[in-house]
């Protein structure tokens, strides 16, 4: 069988495209990140639909949706949950924190303290919470959409490189086109489209798909191509911190998911190229001289994409 296409996946994508107009590529990337088992970081200005996207995703997969609005005074226990004393019987009852959800929107993650950030990121990595020595697993699938405002710097705690590296993709929604914005306004004239969003897939389906995607074939030449792109970042003298092996692995998984969503059971070099910027750019950190020279990590990747030969 040459293609693997599930109508439900198409429905899921249509659901999201119906809510987030004119951003089909970003929607697909979010789905890729979800199916690859990673988490997404949306770096965008307020009001572009980040929360709406997360809600739409949660409703489409019949999952639990939680939102955390990060503030500087937020504590780790506010995220993971804590035990509360019950005076009636003198016991402690664990109250789950908002992380116990299928889709978690971590809004403005850069506004909370590094301690709280690391608590969330630890949860993202291990998909479990340990409180008072007791381990509690998070529901599956567990997908985090974190957001941060790229234009505000006062009172923020930028995510360090090692924590940025844990996000599979760093995406930007951006402002919609005029026609799309018109459509957005009209679609919300009478009711909220989120209320009538049909169920597309279940959480169990998502888990099945995540396992299915690992069977998508990646030719050795394509793998080498991906690794050579990564190697190019490591050899670039302008790069202070290049892509890590975690980045290579995420690129590999996302490429499989991307191919799967395109209806193929094999990965093409085009898939690697399409995912290189979203999955690798936020992992590259430049020397100060390069930054002040106006070089961006995306420029480094674009140069690599132009120069590294593509397998044929």
């Amino acid at each position: 069988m040459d293609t693997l296409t599930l109508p439900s996946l198409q429905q899921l994508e249509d659901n999201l495209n119906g809510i987030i107009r004119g951003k089909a590529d970003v929607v697909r990337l979010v789905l890729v990140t979800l199916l690859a088992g990673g988490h997404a970081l949306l770096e965008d200005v307020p009001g572009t639909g980040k929360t709406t996207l997360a809600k739409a995703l949660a409703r489409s997969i019949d999952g639990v949706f939680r939102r955390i609005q990060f503030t500087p005074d937020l504590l780790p226990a506010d995220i993971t949950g804590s035990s509360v004393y019950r005076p009636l019987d003198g016991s402690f009852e664990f109250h789950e924190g908002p992380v116990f959800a299928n889709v978690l929107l971590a809004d403005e993650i850069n506004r909370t303290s590094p301690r709280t950030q690391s608590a969330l990121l630890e949860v993202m990595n291990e998909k479990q919470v340990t409180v008072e020595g007791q381990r509690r697993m998070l529901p599956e699938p567990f997908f985090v959409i974190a957001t941060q405002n790229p234009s505000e710097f006062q009172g923020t705690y930028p995510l360090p490189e090692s924590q940025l590296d844990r996000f599979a993709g760093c995406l930007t929604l951006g402002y919609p086109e005029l026609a799309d914005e018109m459509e957005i306004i009209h679609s919300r004239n009478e009711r909220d489209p989120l209320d009538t969003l049909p169920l597309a897939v279940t959480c169990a389906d998502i888990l099945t798909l995540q396992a299915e995607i690992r069977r998508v074939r990646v030719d050795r030449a394509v793998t080498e191509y991906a690794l050579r792109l990564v190697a190019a970042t490591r050899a670039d003298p302008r790069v202070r911190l290049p892509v890590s092996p975690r980045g290579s692995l995420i690129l590999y998984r996302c490429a499989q998911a991307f191919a799967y969503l395109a209806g193929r059971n094999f990965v093409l070099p085009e898939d690697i190229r399409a995912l290189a910027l979203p999955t690798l750019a936020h992992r590259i950190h430049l020397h100060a001289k390069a930054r002040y020279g106006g070089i961006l990590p995306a420029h480094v990747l674009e140069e690599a994409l132009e120069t590294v030969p593509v397998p044929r």
Partner: protein
Amino acid sequence: MTGPLITEQEQPAASRLPLPILAAALVALAALCLVRHVWVLPGLFGLALVLPYLVSARIATAPARGLLRLLLFSLALLAAFQPHALAQDELVNVRWSNLFGYLCAAEIVVQAWSRRPHTLLLFLLPCGVLLAAGNTYDSPWIQRIAPLFILCLTPGFRWYRPRPAVRPQRAVLLTGVLLLATLGLGFAVNIAVLRYQVALNAWGAQVMPVASRGNLGISLAPVLGRRSGPQGSSERVLRLDGSRSIYYLRGMAFDTYHQGHWTPTLLERSIQIIPRHTPKFGFGSVQLHIAKLAPLNDLLFTPLATGDISTGSAINWSPDYGGPLLGSASKVMSYGILLTTPGLPSIWPAPTPDRRAQMLEVPAEIDPGIIQLARQIGGNASSPQMKVQKVVQYLLTNYHYSASIDPGSGDPVSNFLLMRKSADCEYFASAATILLRCLGVPTRYVVGYYAHEFDLGSSMVVRQRDAHAWVEAWVDGDGWKTIEATPAGGRPDARRDTLPSRRQYLKAWLQDTRQAINSRLRHLRPWLLAIIPAGLLLYLLLLGWRLLRQRRRRRDMAFHALPADRRLASAAMRFAAWLARAGAPCPPGIPWQEHLARLEADLPAEARAFVQAYNGARFGPAQRDDDLMALSTLLAKLENTPLSRPQ
């Protein structure tokens, strides 16, 4: 994390000798070992050349290299002036040539351990080592090793870049032309030296006043000089088949003695040609068949009682002086002997009056006491046979054999007879010759081989150490007689070692097999023989081309260019070529699909269809023949579609 990351790729790798240079240097050192029979210092040098491939440390500073140079040069000096047991034909003094070779080898080692070796020296120094090894023009090893040396060194030219690099394509062409030219020159020189080696040897003997010793223990111009021990090895030189008997195989005879020298030399003799004649016997009925097992000169060693000889080609000889018999320049490797019978006399004629007079001459430098001694020994003998018997008996009784000889001052034979009384077979034979001449018996001095060792079956084997000297006397009415005047302890059979080891037997078997193959090949026509090397050369060229092609293909297949499946690779190359013809060559960093999407030109729909089908076949789970057929069909359509170049 601050500061740049330094990876291991950024540190310069330790320099190493290019592999061809290393191979050439090792071959030259091996030549030095094999020709000079020295192993320790060349072996150490060879090891020192290989070690840089295993360790990355180098000698960075000039003073340290100078110190190493001093140490190695000192070793070379000590090793070069060690006494050598074997003395072979040499163009210059063997010690100086050894020193030159060791110094060159030492400098190669210094260069190998330097950070930046001098490229030109790396080419010249191995040549110096080989020159030192080739100081002797008589060693067969140089004939075999020199072509190998050239083959090893030639590919190293690609590392020699005295000028800025030219364009890659031109550099490849220049390298190929240089390789062919060097190979051709090397082969031409080798063939010329092999073909004209006799003339070169003769010219060398004329030019240089060196007492030339014959091959492997036979002296073509004997000199009674200092000896420092037994000479000769167990290397086989001749094999005799057909008769198991003791034979004195004569090489050359000399009838003129002067101050320790026996003459005339080969150049001083008039040579006659015996045309190739139909032998009086068939090859299968020869009584004695002699095969050369080592590349001796053209002497044909025959017993005195030779009635006829057959080599399959013309023979040169000098009958007046009792020989020698010489094969043709094409190196006779085996020949048949028919021994004398009552109806078949010996080929050696009676001496002419001049030669008879020469064979009776007692040189003026002989001490008068010798003449007196001779009269004392055999003055009252009634017949030549009796005189011979008395002289031989006297020598065997009163003199003893010794391999270490100091001739002293004056005439060596006189000193031996009157004072020293111990010497080797050359002195005994010379003394017997002089004594018999004093008694009026015409005699001549003969050098050759003493065949005594029986081998398997009906064979006999003659080794280098069986070189011997004896006397031949002319007895009126009886002809030529062989006279052995050396004590039994000094004869080759007395010095015989124990039975050869298994390794020596194996080596002998290999030699015999090669001899048999050579003998069969000699009967083939030249054009048939030429097919074999030509075919081998062609095969090597094809193999080399195929290996290069595979290497390039493997390099391409390793990553970016072509798939492992040849049909897909062919399709990819054809499509790339089609794109180029269509004026839309695809950059190597862009996939075809993306490239086609970027193009503004209106390319045929088959192009996109091809790319889609190709991607499926190339990167998909399995290639089916149908997919490949479809690709081929699409390609054919594209290639047949007229192209309109994009704007």
